[in-house]
């Protein structure tokens, strides 16, 4: 039974199944709140599950002339990466003892995998729109990864550790990371990078539906598309939790009060994301690139300097 424990962790509880079900639920919250902002009813609660079920039922078309292996493997790579990252984030919060040296770095790497999967899948599908989407995704990764890594660096400088468990313990002892000038700047930068990672407006440039017909996903159909949608749903769950873990005092699920606080924190971040998403138009790729490598990286560097000064 001891051998089955990691499998259970990976596939059921903090892993794939749990993240998928919860992620799709919050995907529905996203659609429902967007609908309320546009003063309409919005989809019923089971809508996102129905979408995934329907996509699993549909035929999978692999375009002629595409690289079959990369085309099929790309969505699986993305899903595996994000489920693993989500599993680690949940596990270290539930039990700080399981934290290992460098797990923060591992999660940072795993969070890039969905973007990489989009690039591989887009490039493999032999469609001009997908190629454009893949090249845009690549540009976006270059643009937002630098400020993203810089703001995560501030927590490492503050707690002098690259272990999740110690960062959370530091926050329990000394108050949340966000409760300082540098912390607030870091949270703002993290939030903007999160929008770009989620491929949400105003940074949904690689997936621009009205412009390059879904971009990297243009050739995907059926189950493979479902896996991409599921990856996106899990990202919507995991990235705000990553923000909470690093800056807002960690996830506490040991008591009812803790769970309520966690839900509150998560919903506030989610609703901010939705508000930004549904009130902003799409930026051009060059505008987004300048925005990330200009003001956002500047803010991130200021945050790092302030952290070193101890403000």
């Amino acid at each position, binding site marked *: 039974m001891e051998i089955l424990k990691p499998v259970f962790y990976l596939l059921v509880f903090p892993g794939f199944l749990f993240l998928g079900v919860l992620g799709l639920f919050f995907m529905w919250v996203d659609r429902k709140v967007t609908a309320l902002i546009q003063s*309409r009813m919005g989809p*019923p609660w089971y809508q996102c599950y129905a979408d995934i079920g329907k996509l699993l039922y549909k035929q999978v*078309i692999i375009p002629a002339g595409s690289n079959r292996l990369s085309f099929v493997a790309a969505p699986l790579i993305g899903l595996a990466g994000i489920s693993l990252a989500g599993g680690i984030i949940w596990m270290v919060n539930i039990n700080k003892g399981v934290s290992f040296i460098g797990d923060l770095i591992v999660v940072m790497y795993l969070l890039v995998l969905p973007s990489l999967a989009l690039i591989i899948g887009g490039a493999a599908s032999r469609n001009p729109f997908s190629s454009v989407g893949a090249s845009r995704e690549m540009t976006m990764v270059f643009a937002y990864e630098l400020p993203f890594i810089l703001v995560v660096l501030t927590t490492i400088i503050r707690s002098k550790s690259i272990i999740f468990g110690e960062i959370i313990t530091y926050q329990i002892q000394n108050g949340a990371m966000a409760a300082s000038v540098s912390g607030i700047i870091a949270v703002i930068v993290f939030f903007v990078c999160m929008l770009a990672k989620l491929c949400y407006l105003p940074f949904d440039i690689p997936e621009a539906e009205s412009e390059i017909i879904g971009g990297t996903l*243009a050739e995907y159909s059926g189950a493979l598309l479902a896996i991409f949608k599921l990856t996106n749903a899990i990202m919507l769950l995991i990235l705000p939790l990553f923000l909470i873990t690093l800056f807002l005092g960690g996830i506490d699920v040991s008591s009812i009060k803790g769970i309520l606080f966690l839900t509150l924190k998560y919903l506030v971040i989610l609703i901010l994301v939705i508000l930004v998403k549904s009130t902003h138009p799409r930026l051009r790729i060059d505008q987004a690139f300048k925005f990330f490598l200009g003001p956002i990286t500047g803010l991130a560097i200021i945050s790092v300097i302030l952290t070193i000064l101890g403000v």
Partner: protein
Amino acid sequence: MFSILQKCFKKSIWVYHTNASACNGCDIEIINALTPFYDAERFGIKLVGSPRHADALLVTGAVSRQVCPRLKTLYESVPDPKIIFAIGSCATGGGIWFDSYNIVGGVDKVIPVNFYIPGCPPRPEAILFGAAVALGLVDKKVAAEYLKEKGFPELIEVGQRVTDNE
């Protein structure tokens, strides 16, 4: 398990609309049906940009000879199972161009059609009614038996793969 997935199909229809030499009137009405005022998303209907993601094709216009092969390609690029709506008088039977030299005359001459929504252009309510018939929310307004006697093509059951019939 399979039947659950089949039920999911009716709860989530992603549509792709295409203009097969229409005058744009029906396209405007289709977009109107998807606006917040009519809110097609409450039935799970969503507009997608790529035919690969689509479950339903909304075809408008009396198909001209130029667009005929493209429409066939589009039909093939939508993964099974799929529903085809012919929207507008032109798409249902050629409309006022039924005897034109360059018009094939109706979408069903080129690709199999499941649902016809006549009107010039049909009101957004009519389009939503057609969608509701497809989803099984309301009953059909015409007697299918009567149409079969007149030699109309048989309707394919919604959510059924076309390849299953062969």
